[in-house]
């Protein structure tokens, strides 16, 4: 965990020309851009040093594999098979022979070099436009060797940003609930992992039920629901230090927590006498404010990125629907009017859309609508799925999906899935156990 405190020293190497390749991420991409990720070259002495420290035979190839995998799961790129590469990594990094790369139909090429400098890992990499025969970007950075996986993610973020014009989402983590055991007695633990499923760690032991962890957008704090001592309450956990505390002093169940965009408040529901209302608590001065005031269920609050509005879930019309209000609780307005019931509204980090779960005619959907409720678009349909969480660039949603059991009640599983905002590129996110309630972190490196 400590590693995340160590800053990366990034140096931009000036590039003379401007590239020509562009990737459009606003539409479903059925023709991913063919890209060649040449293994990062490494001198023999550096290779041996890193082998000693990291127990990896060739750290250059390892980092390249991370970049390659990230590009593949983005759905926008098609990393080409390395066996077809004609040029050696070290020479390609100096000056690629574009005809060779053109021959294998690569449109973009990533090359680079790793070296061991004063006990640190130094990486430089270059992005080339193969058709134009030009360098598009060059970057160098230095970090502690243990950060090697993050180096791969940062390279991917830079390449993604250069080619799509939007920030990446690869140097990020997912916090979620790891699940095991029979459906009637699930054991649940908080778990955290890199966005690609690597470095999975369990943060609680499974002694008490835990649900709905969410990242603070600005720090390493997490808020979640724990049934510690059979008192369901919202907790705050510092994932650097492991310290945790109850949020507020409520005489009943608190649940559905989320941070405000500045990370200074927690917004959540408090249930008492059969009525759930939305409250906020300021983490600095501990002042608690009641935001909603209605005898129906008001829950699943989520702030707009500017902090001025709150979307939430209420059954005041008789069934679960999505509402928005000003952050002081005024101007409550229902925005979901389609057929079926709607839950779990989550405001996009770009501010223009709200992602939701919808139940209609026995099927569950993950969808998005504009913040006034117009333009509803359903991205995926299944037996059961819910709880979308946005990637920090607002281009991908992660959620969980549960399977239908057979007639003997067997065959239950819960898995994490992601899908692009376009409705394409649906894929399972690998976890060592079953998983649910995923929450995506902000970019760690800016």
């Amino acid at each position, binding site marked *: 965990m400590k590693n995340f405190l160590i800053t990366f020293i990034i140096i931009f190497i000036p590039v003379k020309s401007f590239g020509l390749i562009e990737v459009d991420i606003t539409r479903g991409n059925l023709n991913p851009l063919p890209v060649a990720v040449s293994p990062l070259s490494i001198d023999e002495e550096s290779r041996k040093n890193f082998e000693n420290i990291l127990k990896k035979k060739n750290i250059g190839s390892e980092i390249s594999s991370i970049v390659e995998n990230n590009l593949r799961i983005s759905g926008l790129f098609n990393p080409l098979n390395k066996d077809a590469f004609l040029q050696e990594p070290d020479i390609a990094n100096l000056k690629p022979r574009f005809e060779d790369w053109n021959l294998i139909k690569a449109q973009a090429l990533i090359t680079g070099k790793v070296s061991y400098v004063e006990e640190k890992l130094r990486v430089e990499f270059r992005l080339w436009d193969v058709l134009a025969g030009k360098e598009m970007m060059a970057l160098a950075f230095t970090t502690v060797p243990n950060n090697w996986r993050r180096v791969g993610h940062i390279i991917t973020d830079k390449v993604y940003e250069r080619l799509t014009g939007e920030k990446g989402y690869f140097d990020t983590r997912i916090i979620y609930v790891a699940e095991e055991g029979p459906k009637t007695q699930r054991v649940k633990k908080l778990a955290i992992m890199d966005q690609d499923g690597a470095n999975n760690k369990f943060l609680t032991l499974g002694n008490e039920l835990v649900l709905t962890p969410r990242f603070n957008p600005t720090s390493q704090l997490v808020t979640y629901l724990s049934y510690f001592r059979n008192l369901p309450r919202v907790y705050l956990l510092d994932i650097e230090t492991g310290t945790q505390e109850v949020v507020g002093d409520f005489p009943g169940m608190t649940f559905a927590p989320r941070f405000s965009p500045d990370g200074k408040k927690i917004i959540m529901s408090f249930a008492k006498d*059969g009525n759930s209302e939305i409250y906020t608590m300021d983490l600095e001065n501990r002042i608690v404010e009641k935001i909603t005031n209605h005898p129906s269920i008001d829950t*699943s609050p989520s702030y707009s990125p500017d902090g001025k509005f709150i979307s939430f879930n209420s059954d005041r019309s008789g069934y679960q629907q999505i509402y928005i209000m000003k952050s002081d609780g005024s101007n409550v307005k229902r925005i979901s009017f389609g057929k079926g019931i709607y839950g779990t509204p989550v405001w996009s980090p770009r501010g223009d859309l709200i992602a939701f779960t919808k139940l209609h005619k026995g099927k569950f959907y993950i969808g998005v609508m504009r913040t006034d409720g117009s333009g509803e678009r359903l991205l995926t349909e299944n037996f059961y799925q819910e709880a979308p969480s946005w990637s920090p660039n607002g281009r991908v949603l992660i959620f969980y999906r549960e399977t239908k059991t057979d007639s003997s009640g*067997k065959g239950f599983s819960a898995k994490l899935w992601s899908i692009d905002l376009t409705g394409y590129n649906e894929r399972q996110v690998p976890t060592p156990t079953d998983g649910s309630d995923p929450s995506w972190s902000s970019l760690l490196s800016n």
Partner: protein
Amino acid sequence: MKLSKILKNGFLIVVACLALSACATSKKSTGQMQGDVYTGTDTVEYLASGVPDRVFFATNESVLTTASRETLRKQAAWLRKNSKITIVLEGHADERGTREYNLALGERRANAAKDYLMTYGISSDRISVLSYGKERPVDSGSNPLAWSKNRRSVTVKAN
């Protein structure tokens, strides 16, 4: 002609079998549900002889049925006789709803039971409420009957 007659008879027998089995299964499920409220006793435990521990709800509802009110009156009578006993009302929802909403719904169901017990003379000091949402189903099935068993408020002795 003869062959077709045999086939025809055979067909009729098959149809009859299908009708019977369909009848048997549908009878079984309607026998345990009224509307979509569970009326069976498969999962019910007893706090004392003749005092069932749980009541069941319709989808998305927290209204007590006639049968639920009868069960709760029995519980209230038992609690009045055993004045030292304190209870936890555990509210639950089925798996066909979002997690956070179901936590609120479970709380609402348990409170419906609490309010009713209070009108029959049980002090709120003796009752606490705990919602599990959809986290603790009794039946792991993914079908209407299983869901009906899971939409419940269970009265549990706390001491």
